[in-house]
């Protein structure tokens, strides 16, 4: 099993916002996030997926081998959360991908990767 534990920071979320172009203020501004009913600013689901993909790539033998990645965003990730991302074999060319926070709650569910040569 390949695993990576990431403690999310505001700086990392802001860097992802900048690099991805997703500058939605719910990822950058606590007040705006609270005004729409969130606990404060939250990480992008796509940042979680991006990290999950690096773990799946490690298990697949390199990022260029990934052929498919599907995730369900099941829980919010906020700065300070420590999320363990893992990928484990689930049959020929298939991986089961998981992301679980420090409370044992899955933030990505029903997540799978496929890879090839």
């Amino acid at each position: 099993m390949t695993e990576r534990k990431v403690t999310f920071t505001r700086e990392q979320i802001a860097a992802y916002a900048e690099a991805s172009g997703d500058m939605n203020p719910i990822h950058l501004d606590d007040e705006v996030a609270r005004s729409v009913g969130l606990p404060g600013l939250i990480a992008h689901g796509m940042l979680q997926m991006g990290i999950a993909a690096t773990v799946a790539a490690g298990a697949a033998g390199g990022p260029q081998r990934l052929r498919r990645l599907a995730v369900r965003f099941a829980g919010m990730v906020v700065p300070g959360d420590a999320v363990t991302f893992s990928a484990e074999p689930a049959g020929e060319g298939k991986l089961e991908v998981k992301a679980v926070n420090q409370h044992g709650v899955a933030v990505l569910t029903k997540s799978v990767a496929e890879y090839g040569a």
Partner: protein
Amino acid sequence: MAAVAGRTYPAVRFEIESERVADFARAIGADPSDGVPPTFAAVYSLGVTAPQLFGDDEAAVDFARLLHAEQEFEWRRHPRVGETVTSQARVASDTSRRGIRFVSFETDTSDERGSIVCRSRALFVIRS
């Protein structure tokens, strides 16, 4: 709120630039020397087309109430730095149940020869 299932949006061209790729790779903790990270599709595929949906007055997607519930990418190959790709999106389905709207948004990204590089499927959930 108007259901817009079947709607397609104009194709969008995007050049995959090395600096942007390196910044993206660092932000997800990938090695920038490994080439274009697979989920850079969040930029060249979903990222260039989702604003078309969000900016579509007839689709009337309330961005503040939107959750990205699911995402899937399928790659035929991974594009290289310096390539220009073209992404075209459509609303695959648009349904509402008990005041919650579900929009399935699909984007096909092709290379300059017209071959598919990546298919993206996003499920957006919009609370009323």
